[in-house]
């Protein structure tokens, strides 16, 4: 039977089990949208393509399945760029489809033409431009394969409009043939042995766990290993939820705004077991002083991460879940000793805390959100102070419940991501903890949330500043607040204009009741928390300092 390229596209998505795509139509995806008209695929129409990319990203982070977004050529494609880069930095499996001008017009600066494969080369795991209908099915198959295997990441597929319109009777798409792409998932037994020996000898082990634990689904193995060897676990921002935050061995987040005890523990450990992390600068502080007395074991699926930022003693390349299982097999139960005592002492001595002074504090709001949701909500954040407060004050216990832009640090991520998360997890509570600056960046997506009746809750930590930049200006630039003060819209009215429920909270004693009220409303709710304006995120490792030299 003859099929059009657009039908092949839709069939390929169905074959991949895609249930939902996020998109925005346009001239060069007309054929594809026409094929979607009859397809059994849920299409969520956003209000800006950036929203579509972030929503697909949120969907992927929450579900573990690849997120799919679709945009037209030119501005539609370029509007995806930030979302693709965000997914790339955090290794999120995303497949982005873009329309492209027809072959006759390609390369001529035609209307709505942009070289999106060229543009996205630095920010995709791989990308394709499909110029021939005979390649389309295979390319789509490969795109999903590449996005979801090995170290996950975004793949972009640019489809010429005449390819979508063309017809073919070709049935078989041919096998996936990628000689240059063979991720190593099985760890080398000898490296496992070496790692196990080092761990067995360790007196002061620390596990440093990152997003790789979450994306490999290795959270159970991580907990088993930690409990077996009684190693405290510090996580990166991306690793939050990969280890239960309420576990006695949990150290919370390390790094620039990590807990003091996490940073002290890493500083003093003799064996550092780095699991699915990349030693990013926000986590390590001054790198040459990071865990400097420790034997470093680095477990990662991506060989290029080994030795990139710090020197590693024992690298183990492979799927994190398999590596951890292999280590557990090789190790014996340890008994608590001085190290574990020291950790508990630090935890008591330097708890994550904040100063209560009768004014509304963001930390309080986040703790209250934790309470009213029993720590079971899916939390998305934007980027800035509120993101760090969330990482510090909300105790994440399940993987894929903390959804945040780590590597790229994208303001405006939270709201569209929450939309994707709610689509993926329709029966769960989804909270977007946002800043007033970040929230405005993709505020148009409130229309999407209301349109699809997604009952997400948005908590705006409203301090009238770009707070994180202001904090740096306060601490390092003599309080010269250069263009960081914001004049904001009336967020309550804004929410109402979008058909959401708007609330405003200005006092500490109103927080709990407002949150409970919001949870009872089966619609999107926006709560404007008017917080203390110049609250700072502490503790803080100043840029260029080692982890144990913390302010606050």
């Amino acid at each position, binding site marked *: 039977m003859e099929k059009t390229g657009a039908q092949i596209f839709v069939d390929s998505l169905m074959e991949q089990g895609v249930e939902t795509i996020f998109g925005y139509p346009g001239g060069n995806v007309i054929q594809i949208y026409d094929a979607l008209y009859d397809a059994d695929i849920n299409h969520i129409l956003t209000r800006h393509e950036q929203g579509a990319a972030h929503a697909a990203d949120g969907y992927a982070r929450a579900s573990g399945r690849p997120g799919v977004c679709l945009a037209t050529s030119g501005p539609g494609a370029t509007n995806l760029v930030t979302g693709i880069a965000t997914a790339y930095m955090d290794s999120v499996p995303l497949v982005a489809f873009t329309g492209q001008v027809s072959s006759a017009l*390609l*390369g001529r600066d035609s209307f709505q033409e942009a*070289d999106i*494969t*060229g543009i996205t080369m630095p920010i995709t795991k791989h990308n394709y431009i499909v110029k021939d209908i005979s390649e389309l099915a295979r390319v789509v198959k490969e795109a999903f394969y590449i996005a979801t295997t090995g170290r996950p990441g975004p793949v972009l597929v640019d489809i010429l409009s005449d390819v979508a319109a063309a017809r073919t009777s070709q049935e078989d798409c041919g096998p996936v043939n990628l000689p240059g792409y063979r991720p190593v998932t099985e760890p080398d037994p000898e490296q496992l042995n070496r790692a196990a020996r080092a761990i067995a000898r360790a007196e002061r082990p620390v596990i440093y766990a990152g997003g790789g634990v979450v994306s490999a689904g290795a959270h159970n193995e991580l907990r088993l290993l930690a409990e077996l060897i009684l190693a405290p676990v510090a996580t990166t921002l991306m690793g939050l939820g990969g280890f239960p935050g309420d576990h006695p061995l949990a150290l919370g987040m390390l790094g620039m705004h990590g807990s003091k005890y996490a940073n002290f523990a890493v500083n003093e450990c003799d064996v550092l077991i780095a699991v699915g992390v990349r030693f990013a600068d926000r986590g390590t502080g001054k790198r040459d002083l990071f865990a400097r007395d420790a034997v470093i074991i680095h477990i990662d699926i991506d060989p290029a991460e080994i030795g990139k930022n710090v020197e590693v003693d024992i690298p183990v390349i492979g799927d994190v879940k398999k590596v951890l299982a292999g280590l557990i097999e090789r190790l014996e139960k340890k008994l608590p000793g001085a190290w574990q005592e020291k950790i508990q002492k630090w935890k008591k001595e330097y708890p994550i805390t904040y100063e209560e002074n009768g004014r509304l504090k963001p930390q309080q709001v986040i703790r209250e959100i934790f309470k009213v949701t029993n720590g079971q909500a899916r939390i998305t954040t934007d980027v800035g102070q509120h993101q760090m407060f969330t990482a510090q004050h909300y105790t994440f216990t399940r993987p894929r419940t903390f959804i945040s832009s780590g590597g790229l640090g994208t303001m405006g991520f939270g709201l569209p991501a929450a939309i994707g998360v709610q689509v993926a997890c329709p029966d769960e509570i989804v909270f977007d903890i946002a800043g007033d600056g970040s929230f405005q960046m993709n505020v148009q997506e409130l229309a999407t949330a209301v349109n699809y009746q997604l009952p997400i809750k948005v908590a705006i930590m409203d301090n009238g500043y770009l707070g994180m930049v202001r904090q740096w200006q306060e601490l390092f630039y003599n309080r010269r607040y250069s263009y960081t003060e914001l004049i904001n819209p009336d967020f309550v009215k804004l929410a109402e204009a979008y058909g959401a429920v708007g609330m405003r909270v200005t006092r500490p004693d109103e927080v709990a009741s407002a949150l409970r009220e919001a949870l009872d409303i089966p619609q999107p709710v926006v709560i404007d928390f008017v917080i203390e304006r110049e609250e700072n995120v502490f503790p803080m490792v100043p840029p260029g300092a080692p982890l144990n030299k913390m302010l606050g």
Partner: protein
Amino acid sequence: MRHTLAVLVENNPGVLARVAGLFSRRGYNIDSLAVGRTDNPAISRMTIVVEGDDRVLEQVTKQLHKLIDVIKISDITADEYVDRELVLIKVSAEPEKRGEIMQIADVFRARIVDLGRRTMILECTGNEGKVKAFEESLRPYGIKELVRTGKIAMLRGSRYTSITTNGSREDE
């Protein structure tokens, strides 16, 4: 038809990406591209062999000119020029076959640059036709590995392509 372009560029980081990206996004086919520094360390020279009719070539040239780092482009296809390519071929060479292979090397004025127990590496320079013939002659013995540099080219006689001239011209 195939054209050979001599392109002088400023030796800035990313200049290769700019040129390669241009060819890809405009849909031009590069046959080969060789790049290296010139006598002036601030200037690199690319030899690009590109496939296309006159119209395509006109576009290629004009679009290349728009890159700020591109100083000069000469299409030397129609001129008298010397072109060379270097190839390294690792070929199966059991002891009893070595004599034959060395004879072939002689014919092509190729050099033996490595001798293993069962293989040897031969180095040959020449124009495309010669390199191809050399490869074909070795094929029956079993080519294990082959690497080519891509073509480099230079005008014959006293004419030259350099940044001080506005188009290649006869030297005084």
